[in-house]
């Protein structure tokens, strides 16, 4: 009786906020591409003020590391530093085309928004990006489709040369073993330095030459590139 009176007065005073209620969520991610891999995923629950990236703005050094080389450590540190909750590398490695990682449990605590990133391989600086999606408070299953973005930090030369460090040109690797070599490079002088929707890769059908080391029959994609299913408990 006393407790309900207290609740009632809290409600009346507007002090009882939904955002302070902890929620258990279960996340699954499916790679929807034809033949691209995702590097280790960063799944992060955070407050509405946090973002892993902003479209139309320049990438942070932490985002650049992830987008060019798949390194999520700095982004994870930033989220944890802002009292967020993360799951790092739930697939324990690369997530191949057609593959899913299921049942990633997150106790979101006070965090109300969800972000997910991973680099798309083989690309220069493409990443899958779910940006600060508001986690529903009502229990249920929700499906979100995720697009590929270009970090805007590296020219899309489509040359596979092992370059995965920030600022180093080139693509680290084609994990499917289906990349080419000796490409002359896809160069058109464009320099959009802001995070933007990725234009997709060009590729060609010449594994031993041509402009690109990517295969146009394997490595192209259209959005969306990932399916995220969130179950709110």
């Amino acid at each position, binding site marked *: 009786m006393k407790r309900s009176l207290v609740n009632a007065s809290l409600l009346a005073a507007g002090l009882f906020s939904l955002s302070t209620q902890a929620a258990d969520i279960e996340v699954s991610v499916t790679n929807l591409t034809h033949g691209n891999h995702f590097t280790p995923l960063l799944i992060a629950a955070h407050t509405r003020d946090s973002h892993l990236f902003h479209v139309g703005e320049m990438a942070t050094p932490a985002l650049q590391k992830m987008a060019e080389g798949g390194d999520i450590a700095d982004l994870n540190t930033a989220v944890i530093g802002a009292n967020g909750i993360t799951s790092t590398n739930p697939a324990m490695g690369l997530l191949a085309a*057609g593959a899913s990682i299921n049942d990633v449990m997150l106790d979101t605590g006070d965090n109300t928004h969800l972000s997910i990133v991973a680099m798309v391989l083989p690309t220069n600086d493409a990443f899958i990006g779910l940006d600060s999606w508001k986690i529903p408070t009502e229990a249920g299953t929700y499906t979100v489709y995720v697009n590929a973005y270009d970090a805007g930090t590296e020219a899309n030369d489509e040359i596979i040369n092992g370059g995965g460090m920030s600022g180093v040109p080139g693509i680290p690797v084609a994990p499917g073993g289906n990349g080419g070599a000796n490409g002359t490079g896809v160069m058109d002088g464009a320099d959009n330095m802001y995070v933007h929707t990725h234009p997709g890769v060009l590729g060609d059908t010449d594994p031993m030459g041509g402009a690109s080391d990517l295969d146009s029959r394997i490595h192209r994609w259209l959005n969306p590139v990932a399916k995220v299913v969130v179950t709110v408990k």
Partner: protein
Amino acid sequence: MKTTDIKLKTSLLGLFVATTLLSGCGNDDDDVVVAPAPPVVVMQTFTVTVTNLTANQPMSPMILAAHSAEASLWQAGEKASVAIEKMAEGGDTADIAALAVIESSVNGTGMLMPGMSETLTLTLAQADVANISLATMLVNTNDAFTGINSYHIAEMEVDRPQMMKYMAYDAGTEANSEAKGTMPGPADGGEGFHAARDDVDFVHIHPGVITMYDGLADSVLMPSHRFDNPVIAVTITRTE
């Protein structure tokens, strides 16, 4: 055993009631036997209007199907069923209509041309209303398809349309060679369903077509056959 007992009792009770009713009638002079009123079946009608948003990809005659909430026609990342393969490679929806999970289905009247719209109508007993799916092939491709994958319509109110757009999937059952003789649409006039599977063998988002103009030497496709998502716009309305 117990179930049987109960059934027996019920039928005995029914017999008893019937006898009482008959004898009741027998006492009257008229011979009219009043049949028990059949339970009233409330029907719900749904219209699904589909617009082809592509530049130059006619879509094969659509199938609109009603099924339970648990059923789905395909799952991204999983192998396509043979029924989906036949639809995605050749536009043939007969196997989808025959699936055990499908309660009822209707087909489009013909090809849905780019820019055109068609409205399909499903009337279902209220008790059977759960989910619907729709499927159609992009015919100037090897095995691209689009549609609605298990959309919940049970709580829809009358005349409150739901609008959405959907993307193109790749059935993953036939390599996207774009080569002469491999695609059934007007760009090629080639083969439809082919039982052999020579691609990644899982359903995924279609990567798009390359065309002869973009470096795929054997392709018979032209730039206008390219597409981007979404490829269809859909309006679902419950009309009664």
